[in-house]
């Protein structure tokens, strides 16, 4: 079992590398799927591992996107340093807001995160002279990557750049969730009361993972800005948070890869369905969601895993609290 999974993991990343030649005409879409996947990975840490139900995760994505955009619009167009600054700023915002999010019931958390997201959206709209408001931030111009590789129209540079960044961050997250700290998070999700009783500082642990996830979301936002060379107010929208939830669940939460699978299926299905009949994409999306919660709760990845597992094991269920 363990070795199959490892092998699958290697195959997963190899396919992505091969994607450079396999789908040359679809590199822009592939980059955006990877970015959405990274964003979903960040949300997976919050929801799948720490059990915090949030509908305002776009706040950190947006902070990262605007940070990278504003840097580039004001002359700091070097991508990698911009990416780091964006991640740090998002982490800072995540750290400051984390005390508000780690307490309360599911409903309270849901509403506080939603409220914070909406407040940030309004703020970005109101600061139109800085952010460009609904018209979007203009003048984002990126310098060539590593001083040599221009962001081209085919999306080749962008794809390579995104893939490397996502891979590195994925490795870090993988280490994190398999560390003792990661295990304590799972413990908190399963039973916070008991974790407290055995001396685990639950609030502190949750705040730490929330901050970490915010940094990831910020980097994802910054990648989107840098590869699009534009920032729209929609990076902060409620819809983006809601879609994120859908993506992660479609893929399977609490499994690290779920976000990538979910993002790929969601965005490709959207792409295909909306070119068939753009108006009713929502209908089929809704039907799929209902079917997924009715049938397999742990998403595509969970279903695949059950198929792979010959021994009958308790399926990994996702519970939020």
């Amino acid at each position: 079992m363990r070795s199959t999974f490892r092998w699958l993991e290697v195959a997963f990343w190899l396919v992505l590398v091969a994607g450079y030649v396999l789908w040359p005409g679809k590199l822009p879409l592939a980059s955006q799927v990877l970015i959405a996947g990274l964003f979903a990975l960040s949300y997976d840490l919050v929801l799948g591992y720490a059990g915090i139900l949030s509908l305002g995760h776009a706040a950190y994505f947006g902070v990262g996107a605007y940070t990278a955009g504003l840097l580039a619009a004001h002359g700091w167009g070097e991508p990698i340093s911009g990416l780091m600054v964006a991640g740090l700023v998002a982490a800072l915002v995540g750290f400051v807001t984390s005390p508000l999010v780690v307490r309360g019931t599911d409903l309270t958390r849901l509403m506080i995160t939603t409220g914070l997201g909406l407040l940030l959206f309004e703020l970005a709209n109101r600061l139109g002279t800085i952010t460009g408001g609904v018209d979007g931030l203009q003048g984002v111009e990126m310098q060539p990557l590593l001083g040599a590789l221009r962001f081209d129209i085919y999306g080749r540079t962008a794809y390579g750049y995104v893939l490397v960044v996502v891979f590195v961050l994925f490795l870090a997250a993988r280490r994190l969730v398999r560390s003792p700290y990661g295990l304590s998070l799972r413990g908190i999700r399963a039973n916070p009361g008991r974790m407290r009783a055995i001396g685990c500082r639950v609030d502190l642990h949750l705040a730490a993972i929330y901050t970490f996830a915010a940094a990831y979301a910020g980097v994802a936002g910054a990648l989107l800005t840098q590869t699009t060379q534009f920032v729209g107010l929609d990076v902060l929208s409620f819809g983006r948070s809601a879609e994120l939830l859908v993506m992660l669940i479609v893929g399977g939460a609490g499994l690290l890869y779920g976000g990538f699978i979910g993002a790929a299926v969601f965005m490709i299905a959207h792409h295909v369905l909306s070119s068939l009949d753009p108006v009713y994409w929502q209908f089929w999306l809704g039907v799929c969601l209902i079917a997924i919660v009715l049938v397999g709760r742990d998403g595509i990845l969970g279903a695949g895993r059950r198929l792979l597992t010959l021994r009958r094991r308790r399926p990994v269920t996702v519970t939020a609290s």
Partner: protein
Amino acid sequence: MSGRLWGALSFAVAAIVSAGAAAQDVVRVGMIAEMSGPFAETGRQMVNGAKAYQKVFGETVGGRKVELIVRDSTGPAPEVAKRLAQELLVNDKVDFLAGFGLTPNALAVAPLATETKKPMIVMNAATSVITQKSPYIARVSFTLAQVAAPLGTWAAKNGIGKVYTLVADYGPGIDAETAFKKTFIAGGGEIVGEVRTPLRNVEFAPYLQRIKDARPQAVFIFLPVGEQPVAFMKGFAERELDKAGIRVIATGDVTEDGQLEAMGETPLGVVTTHHYSAAHDSAQNRTFLKAFADVAGPDFKPNFMAVGAWDGMAAIYEAIRRNGSGPIDGDRVLAALKGLKIDSPRGPIMIDPETRDVVQTVYVRRVQKRGGRIYNVEFEQIPNVKDPGK
């Protein structure tokens, strides 16, 4: 069995060869429009407007077939618009980019038009700055400042001395407010109060009360199309601001033709300035309305967004004609578009040779009942209005 296979194969080969031959004679127009999400109405208007044009004038021009490829930008999503544009340019090898209902989508794509030297026809997005973002952009729709500024002049000239402005607190609202105030004050008018309302506002009572307290002669409003203008007009009537001697003046988005239905009789008498009304009396408009009904069904009422797409197609057809038989060349197309005059359903329009933005007649209209239905009836016109935002 094998005979049938051969038959199928040779048929396929023949199809590919003929497609290859035909490719020379096909001009592809990649249309990026908002087909789903909260702005789906915009996209549906545009696509049907473009299809209506093709229905009347045919799918071929100068011996070439014009193929429309529609892609859904899903709403205000610049990264999606840009990605779709990349795919259209790289995979579908389109000769024109067109559509664009929302400003951020158009702005995100602009650099690609410059890089690939492909003409980009903006059919709706109304922020002044768009055409300055690439020398390959031409706009056939309107800009907000273009329709808001004449209203300021008209109001000052027609006995309205004191105005309160109420606009939604976002880019377009602020543009409309700025343009209106400039001409209104220049004409001798006085702004007695101004307020900017939240983007997603549903409760107008406190604002209406403020306006009532200030006792202006008129209130100028700009609100995003949707429930807000309806809510404002209803509140305005309910609170009897009209009886307090206050009038409503606005840009035409507020009394957009499709939306008048939901407002009931509350907007009767409202004066707006805009570039198109479904009630515009001309042969071109009748042709347009009939074609649109044929394409989209009788229940779907066209508005200025559909006209924008119609005129966009007219510009593209004329550009193809003037391009000649060679491959579509961006610079040649832009040269053809500069100064191009179109006999539009809204009246005569021209693409400004300097700014590549639209120059057109702006109409002053009053909401009136005509034969049981409510229309924006044009009663004054200001010809050759340029975008004052540049």
